[in-house]
Structure formats: C-alpha cells, structure tokens
C-alpha cells in the first residue's frame, strides 16, 4: 500500500466479517474438542483405575534419620543445614529409578531411595528434602549453578562430567541390556537379527551402538523410553535397549509382560553427583554406601526386585579421576568454532535443511490454504479458516510436541525426527504464508478485479492474469519476513532431538566446551543469516515497489 493511499474504508468491514467468522469457527472447533475431552474423561471415571497400578504398599524405608550430623569441611552440607533443608536433583520419568506418580504425587524408585538414604545420613528427613526434577541434559549445569545440593538419577560417572562436578559412589553398576516381551525368543544380543526391531531413545548412545555393531538390525527411535515400552507391549517393536536397570524399572512395572534378558554389553557406573571440590561429602557418601550392610539390597528389592533382574552392590570407592587427556575445551573464542568444525557443519547443515525443506512445505501448503481461503467454495473457506485459526493460536512447541510424541503413538511408520520436524515447521509456517498471500491479494485495488471481470474473465483468469501478478509484488517482502521467522523457529527442533544449531551446546559440552562461547556463536550465526535475509527483503522491496 503506497504512502499516499487513503485507508481502505471499503475493505475494513468485510475483513471484520471474515474475522468474526474465523473466531466463530475456531470457537466451535474448540468447544467440540472440549466436549470430546470431557466425555473421554467421564468414560475414564466409570472404568476406574487401570489394573496395572494396583500395587501393595511397599515396605517402609530401611534406614533412620541421623541426628546432630556434622560433616567436617563440607560447604554443601553446611549450607543445607543453615537453610534447614536439602535440595536433591532427581529424575521423575523413570519408573523404578526416579519417578513421580502424577495421580498420587508420590515419588518412588531406587535412585530416589538412595537420595533419601543419603539425606537421612545427613540428618534430613523426608519433610526436609526438596526434590527438583532435572532433565538429563541439565544435570551438570544444575550442580554448577547451585540449583541442587546433590544429584541422584542414572548419572554415569564419566571423565568429561568430572571436569565440572564430582561423583560419589558408584552405587550401581549396569550396562546396556535388552527388554523383551515374556516368552520372546530373544535371549540376548546374539538373537537380534533382520526380523527383530529394536527401539531406543532418539540419538542415544545405546541405539548408536546397536546401529554401529549390528547394522542388519532394524531400529526405531522415539524421544522417550515410555514410547518404546508402549510400542514393545503393542508388538510394534521386539526389543527395547538401554541401561539394564532403566529397563528393569519398566519390567518391574509390568512383571507379567516384560522381562530383561541377556548379559550387559557395556558398563555404566552410576554415581551421586556433587558440586566440584566437596571431598568431605564424597567421603561421607562413599562411607555410607560401604558400611550400609544390607540396606542397599533392601532398597534394591523394594524398587526393582519385581523385575527379576539380580544385581549386587558395587564397591563405592570412586575418587577424583586423574585427568585422562579428555578434551579440555578450546582456549580461544574462535577456537570453539574452528576446533569443532565437524559438529558445527552438521548443525548448520541440519538448520539449513529444516529451513529449506520446512520452507518448501510451508509455501506449497500455505498457497493451497491461502487459495482455499479466498475461493468461492464455502466449505473450502471454512476448512482453511479453521486450520489457520487453530494452528496460529497454538505455540510452535506444542505443534512439535504432536509431531514428535503424538505421531509415533499412532503406530504409523516412523520417518525419523528430521522429517517430523520439517512437518511441524511446515504445518505451522503454512498458516503465516496463507495469511500473507491473502492480505497481499487484498492490497490489489478492487477496481482491478472488477475490470478483469468486466472483460469477461473467469475466476481462475482474474486471479492468474490480473490479481496475482500485482499481489506478488506486495507479498514478497512480508513473505521473506515469514521465512526469517521460520529460520529462527528451526531452533525449536532442539527440544525434539534434531541435531541443529539449537542443540549444539549439549553436544559441545560433551567435548568440554563451555556453554557461553558456543551459544554466542550460535547467536552470531543467526544474526548474520537473519540480517542477510533482511537485506534481501529490503532489496526486493525497493526493486518491486508497487508504483500506484
């Protein structure tokens, strides 16, 4: 719209009408959904609690809270005692290990009980423990930040992690194993073959090991283990692989259906994560574990005994491991980039792949939807309006959630997370493409279309010969704006297991790089890419300005 053009008073009421319709349609769809939810909830009520969760009360904890504890020289314990409570980082989505039941809100699991045991030995009862659920990727950070005093949650002792934090323990030694259905012919890794589908968490080291060592075995990857376990119970996959005790947690949940088989084919030593340098606390915990008698076994049986997996308490003798030459991180800001060119290359490539493929999907789908929104067919308009109204009012993260978690639940072939991420970005961005097209067409003065119609042109030719060629000019700049947003939105895939720029921090922290320079570089890359697109936008704008 040119500078001198008066506000288009004619168009406004009509747009108001469209908007009102949008709202009505969207609201109608929403209320339908709400009714469906309510009905399903009622159905659930009458059916009562699923049988699988009817478990007897577990035995009481096999240890007592100590009194008047002094751990000489431990800043962590001193701070906790001054504060009056202990903050423990745990997991809450691993049954049998670190788990919370959303209905009863009870925490349970082997790791949680170990944490309770340690807390009790320091004089903190259950009411003096503050649990914080920390995701796997944030564990070191939470200890470094001081968010938690200690962390207990399937935390493998590795030299890389020990540069930032310390470990006490190990309190459990496990290794990669297989979870299968009761009565399955699979008894160990050797029984896997082209006919057995193995499932694990996306990009996790267990699935990578299977892929590398047994390329003949078909694999399926889900973002969360619970999805793998569900697929196993439904018969979509034949085995789930990861650390044996994690599998044992699910086996203990469904002891009649699932069983852990085979010898572990790797070694993971779980330790209690501590802030760096708290030797006194490490010694205290190691001593507790070593002198605990049969407490460990009681805690194990209480949580994982039902799984049938038999484990023994390891010797808790871990001390700070000498520096074994693992990477130290780059000395210079530039070195972060040049020293890890392989990972940066992969990340940038994936970001660009998501951008171009997602953009292509969005442009095609958005053009179809945009055409439907202005078409003379009421049904098509209603469908397109509902789609745009619903998706544009949904956060992109939620759209990703449905593609990454919801789609696999439908039991369809899994195309991999990059494809699902492209689908999510395309679906979301298409609504913006459609709206840009629609408002672009509305900038063409009504007289143009009227003149074309007066010449006797049908709808298709009015659009293709007269309106669209003019609309394209005013559409190009905002369309680049949509693409800029798409480029930035590719980072959301970081939350859903795609190795693009948003997730490189986690990968590089394994190599000992600190987060700040990595993220600054990510920001710099985005600023450069976005400014380049913005320059393109300005150039197109000037070049294709509509002179009216």
């Amino acid at each position, binding site marked *: 719209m040119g500078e001198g053009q008066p506000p288009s008073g004619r168009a406004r009421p009509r747009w108001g009408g469209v908007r009102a319709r949008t*709202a009505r349609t969207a609201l109608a769809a929403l209320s339908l959904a709400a009714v469906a939810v309510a009905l399903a909830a009622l159905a659930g009520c009458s059916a009562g609690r699923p049988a699988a969760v009817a478990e007897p009360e577990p035995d009481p904890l096999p240890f007592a809270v100590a009194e008047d504890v002094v751990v000489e020289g431990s800043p962590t314990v001193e701070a906790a005692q001054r504060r009056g409570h202990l903050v423990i980082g745990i997991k809450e989505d691993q049954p049998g290990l670190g788990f919370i039941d959303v209905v009863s809100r009870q925490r349970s699991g082997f790791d949680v009980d170990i944490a309770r045991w340690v807390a009790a030995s320091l004089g903190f009862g259950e009411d003096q423990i503050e649990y914080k659920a920390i995701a796997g990727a944030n564990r070191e950070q939470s200890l470094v930040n001081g968010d938690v005093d200690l962390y207990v949650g399937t935390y493998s002792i590795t030299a890389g992690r020990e540069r930032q934090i310390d470990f006490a323990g190990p309190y459990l030694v496990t290794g990669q194993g297989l979870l299968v259905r009761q009565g399955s012919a699979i008894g160990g890794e050797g029984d896997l073959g082209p006919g057995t589908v193995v499932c694990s968490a996306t990009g996790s080291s267990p699935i990578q090991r299977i892929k590398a060592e047994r390329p003949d075995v078909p694999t399926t990857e889900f973002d969360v283990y619970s999805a793998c376990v569900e697929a196993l119970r439904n018969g979509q996959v034949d085995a789930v692989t990861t650390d044996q005790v994690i599998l044992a947690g699910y086996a203990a949940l469904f002891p009649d259906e699932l069983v852990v088989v085979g010898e572990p084919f790797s070694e993971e030593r779980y330790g209690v994560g501590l802030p760096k340098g708290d030797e006194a606390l490490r010694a205290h915990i190691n001593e507790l574990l070593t002198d605990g008698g049969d407490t460990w076994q009681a805690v194990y049986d209480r949580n994982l005994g039902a799984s049938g997996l038999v484990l023994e308490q390891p010797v808790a003798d871990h001390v700070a491991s000498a520096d074994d030459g693992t990477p130290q991180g780059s000395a210079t800001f530039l070195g972060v980039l040049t020293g890890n060119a392989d990972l940066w290359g992969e990340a940038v490539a994936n970001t660009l792949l998501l951008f171009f493929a997602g953009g292509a999907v969005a442009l095609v789908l958005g053009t179809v939807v945009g055409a439907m929104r202005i078409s003379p067919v009421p049904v098509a308009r209603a469908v397109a309006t509902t789609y745009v109204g619903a998706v544009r009012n949904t956060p992109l993260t939620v759209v990703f*959630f449905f593609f990454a978690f919801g789609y696999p639940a439908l039991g369809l072939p899994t195309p991999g997370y990059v494809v699902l991420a492209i689908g999510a970005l395309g679906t979301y961005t298409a609504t913006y493409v459609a709206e840009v097209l629609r408002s672009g067409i509305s900038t063409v003065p009504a007289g143009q279309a009227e003149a074309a119609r007066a010449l006797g042109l049908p709808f298709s030719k009015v659009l293709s010969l007269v309106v669209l060629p003019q609309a394209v000019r005013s559409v190009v700049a905002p369309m680049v704006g949509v693409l800029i947003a798409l480029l930035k939105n590719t980072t959301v895939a970081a939350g859903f297991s795609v190795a693009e720029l948003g997730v490189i921090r986690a990968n590089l922290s394994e190599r000992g790089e600190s987060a700040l320079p990595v993220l600054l570089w990510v920001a710099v890359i985005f600023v450069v890419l976005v400014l380049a697109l913005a320059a393109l936008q300005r150039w197109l704008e000037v070049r294709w300005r509509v002179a009216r």
Partner: protein
Amino acid sequence: VSSTLYDVPGPRAVARNRALGVATIVVVGGILAFLLQRLIATGQFSAEKWYVFSTASVWEQVAAATGRTLAAFASAAVASVLVGVALGVARLSDHAWVRWPATVVVEAFRAVPVLVLMMLLYYGLPAFGVRMPTYWAVVIALTAYNGSVLAEVVRAGVGALPGGQAEAGYALGLRKSGVLRLVLLPQAIRSMLPVIVAQLVVTLKDTALGYIITYNELLYFARLVGTQAQYDSPILQAGAVAAAIYIALCLALSAVARWLERRLRRHPAGLAVAPAAVAPGGPPGAGSVGVEAAAAGEQQREGGGA
C-alpha cells in the same frame, strides 16, 4: 476481498463450486477419517488412556502448570511493553549516542531466536557467575525479544502520525519531551494497541519454549503425564489437553485485540492515523487473525514467533 474476485455464480459456476466443495469434503474428510481410524486402532479413546484426566489431583496440577505459564507471560508482557516504549522512544531520539545503541539492541534481539536467548541466559551466563532459575531466563528472553519488536511498533506508530501533530505541539511552546509525552505517544500507542496486544499473543505462545530449557510450565507437565507408563502413557491425550488450554488462552487474547480494534474504529479520533501506520511486527508475527487489517502496510520484517 473474495467477492470482488468473482461474479455472482451462474448455473455452471454453482455446479462447479458444488463439485469443488464435495471434493474438499472428500479430501479433508478422508484425512480426518484416516486419523480417527488410527486413533481408534491404537486405543487413544480407551478409558485407561484418559484415566489420569479423571482425577482431581492431575487437574490441580494442570491448573498449577497453567498458572506458571501465565505467570511467565504476565511478567514478560508488562516488562516488554515498558521496554518497548523505552527503546522505541530511544530510537526516535535526536541524539545519535542514544539512537544508535538502541538500534543495535533492537536489531540484535530481533535477529536472535528467543530460544537461543533463553539458553544464553540459563546455560551461558553462569560462566560470569550470573545464575538464575529457568523462570527468569524465560521472562528475560521474552522481554528482550518482544520489547524489541514493540519498540519498532511504537516507532512506526509515532512515525505514522501526521507531521502537523508535532508541529502544533511545538507551536504551543512544548519542548521535545512534552511533544513526545503529551502529543505523540498517546496517539501512537492508542492507534497501535491492537498490534501491541497481538504481539502479546506471540509472547504467550513463546512461553511454551520454556519447556525446552525445562521451565516447569504447562507443556512440561503434559510431557510428564504423557510418559507415565503405568497409566498407559497418555501422551496424545496430555498434548490435546495442553493444546486446548493454549488455544483457549490465545483466542481470548486475540479477542481482546479485536475488541480494541473495534473500539478504536468507533472513535475515529484515534483512528485517523491508524490504518497506514502499520507495524513491522505486524501480522505474520501477530498470531492473531485479528490484526491483519494492519497487514497491508509497508515493511514487515518479523514473521511469527514460535
């Protein structure tokens, strides 16, 4: 728009439109039927899958998680409007030493993805000893981004006012600050209100990014519920509940934007300047279907947030 593109349909066009309508119904209906078939085949409507949502305990936690989403939104919304006005005014300053830093800040924060900003705050800053809970990382990142977008909105709003407004202000003897404070800003903000509210819809949607840095908000709780194997892993069900809540909240905010727009239209004094004054952060970013009236406007760089 549509009606200017085609004539009142004659008999052949009516028949063709009907055929197209039927084709649309068949295609869309087919897709929906297939999805429904998959949902039924995988037992998504079974009582076990919905059991958790029949307990008061879970709904209490859903309410609490929604509260945390809204808390982050409310803080970020208030802060980004304040930051937006401040930065917008700074960009309008006559002094280069005020204008240039503001420009750099606005351009940089609009170019960096909000998620990367959140990660910088949460994972990056502890290197300098600055540690914050995820809540503040979410709020500060959303404020930085949306404040920058709103700064452009404010600037565009002031820029679109007729020159006579400022001139009249100076003629009355007002100083620069007086002209801005008493004459320009009230009109600009008034005419830009719908766009500002639409940007707040984007802010609300972007709170869901907190899920990725593990801020314990609505989507985070949905995932926790969805991975409960003993309740049959109701991930689709939890996602559906979360999505319904997000959509309801966003529609409510969009409704506010539309209501403001209608109100402004009824009082043309404020509107005289509005339609041309279209904001950069405009429609694609708006997230609302409501504001695209403003869309026709000139440059709009920013598309939708996440």
